[in-house]
C-alpha cells in the first residue's frame, strides 16, 4: 500500500513548522519523515506501474493468474 498524498503534504507542513526555530533535531527528524513517505510512495508507484506492452501489463497478469483457462491467458509450452 502507498501513503496517502495528504499524509505527505501534512508531513511537509509539519517539517516547515518545526524548522521555523532553526536547524534542530526535531527539524531533521521531521524532514526525515517526509523523505521516508516520499520514498514509500515512489516504491509503491514503481511496483504498480503498468508496462507499455499490453500483454505484459500487470492487470492482465493478475487476471490470468486467477483465470488461467481463459482463452486470452492460455499458454501451451510444447
Amino acid at each position: 500500500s502507498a501513503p496517502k498524498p495528504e499524509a505527505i503534504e501534512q508531513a511537509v507542513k509539519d517539517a516547515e513548522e518545526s524548522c521555523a526555530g532553526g536547524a534542530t533535531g526535531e527539524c531533521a527528524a521531521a524532514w526525515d519523515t517526509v523523505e521516508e513517505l516520499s520514498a514509500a510512495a515512489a516504491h509503491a508507484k514503481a511496483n504498480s506501474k503498468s508496462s507499455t506492452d499490453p500483454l505484459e501489463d500487470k492487470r492482465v497478469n493478475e487476471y490470468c493468474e486467477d483465470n488461467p483457462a481463459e482463452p486470452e491467458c492460455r499458454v501451451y509450452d510444447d
Partner: protein
Amino acid sequence: MAALQATTAVTAMAAPRPAMAQRAGFKATPVSAIARPTFSRTLAQRSMKAGRVQSRVVVVQAASDKVVVIGLAADSGCGKSTFMRRVTGIFGGEPKPPAGGNPDSNTLSSEMTTVICLDDYHSLDRNGRKEAGVTALAPESQNFDLMYEQVKALKEGKTVAKPIYNHVTGLLDPPEDTTSPNILIIEGLHPFYDDRVNELVDFRIYLDISDEIKFAWKIQRDMAERGHSLESIKASIEARKPDFDAYIDPQKKKADMIIQVLPTQLVPDEKEGKILRVRLIMKDGMKLFDPVYLFDQGSTVSWIPCGRKLTCSFPGIKMFYGPDTYYGEEVSVLEMDGQFDKLEELIYMESHLSNTSAKFYGEITQQMLKNSAFPGSNNGTGLFQTIVGLKCREVYERITEKTVARV
C-alpha cells in the same frame, strides 16, 4: 597404459565388474554452472518444433549450504531497489514478498536470494524518533544488537522472527518468520556501521550519489509527482545532511565496490541529472573477486568508443580506466560518462571489458536488455550495477566452492 589394462583385467576376473558409474574413470563430471543442452532424445524433444530454441539461461546451483551475505549501503532514494532487482535477476527467479504475510513487509525472496531491508531494525518508530529528535540515519534509532544476532543466525542457517518496519504507518509491526536463504542481501542505511555486522558481510557494496545528482533525482521523484516545492526538497536534503555525513557516508571506506554517480563532464551545465558520469571503484587484491578492466590491466586508459566503428548521438560516450587510491587503499576505477541509445554500443563496449565475471559473451548486454525498463538502463548506472551483480555471483561461487573443497 599396459599396467592399467592389467589391473583392469585382474579385477574383472576377481570380482564382477562394478557398474559403470561406480568406477573412478566413469564418475559423472560435476555439472557446470552453464546450462548445456542434453542430447538425449526425449519424447518432449522429438516433438519440439525446430524453430523453437530455448533462450540461453545461466543457472547458479547451490553447491553447499553455506550462506553468503552481501551488504548494500545507500541513502533513501538512491536506487537501492533498482539495484536489488538487477542483482536478484542475475540469480534467476522473480523476487516476491512473503506470501500471505504483512502486505507492507520489506522482505523480498526468490529461490536463491532473500533481500532484507535494514529499516526493519529501527529501535525507534517514526513517533519515537520525532520525540527524541533524531533521524533514521542516526545510530540511536537503530537496534544493532538485534541486527547482529539475526544476521548471524541467518548466516548459520537458522530461521528468525524479524520485525517489520512499516514505511506507510511508521510503526514497528509484528515480526515475520524469515528463513535462511543461499544468498542473504542486507540493504539499507547502516549495513557496515556496526563492526560485528560488518564482519558477517562477505561482499560490501556502496552506492555513492553526489549531492547534485541526488537533488536532481529527488526533483524528478517528488516535484512532478507530489507537488513538493523546490525549497522543500532542498530543505529536506539540507536537514538530513549532517547525519548523512556523520553516519552513512563514512561506511564507503569499508566497501569492496563503490558505484559513484557524478554530473557529466561531456555537457557543460547539465542540471537535469539525465546524463551521468558513473565510476565503479573496485578494491584491488581481494580474494573473492577480480576487478574489471578495460584493454590492459593496470594501465590508465581514456577511450571514446565513438568513431568509424560506432556512431553515437550527442553527447557520445567516454570511458576511463585506471589505478587509483581510495581512502588510502589501492583501487581500480572504471568510468563511463554519457549514455547509449542502441544495443550495438553496449555489446561493442562489453567486448572490450575483461574480468567481467560473465559466463558467456554478451551476458551483460543480455541482462541489461532483460531489465531495459529499469531506471539507468541507458547509462553507466545500469551497466555497472549489472557488472556488480555478476561479481556477486562470482563471490558466491568462490565462497561455496571453497567450502566444498574443504569438506
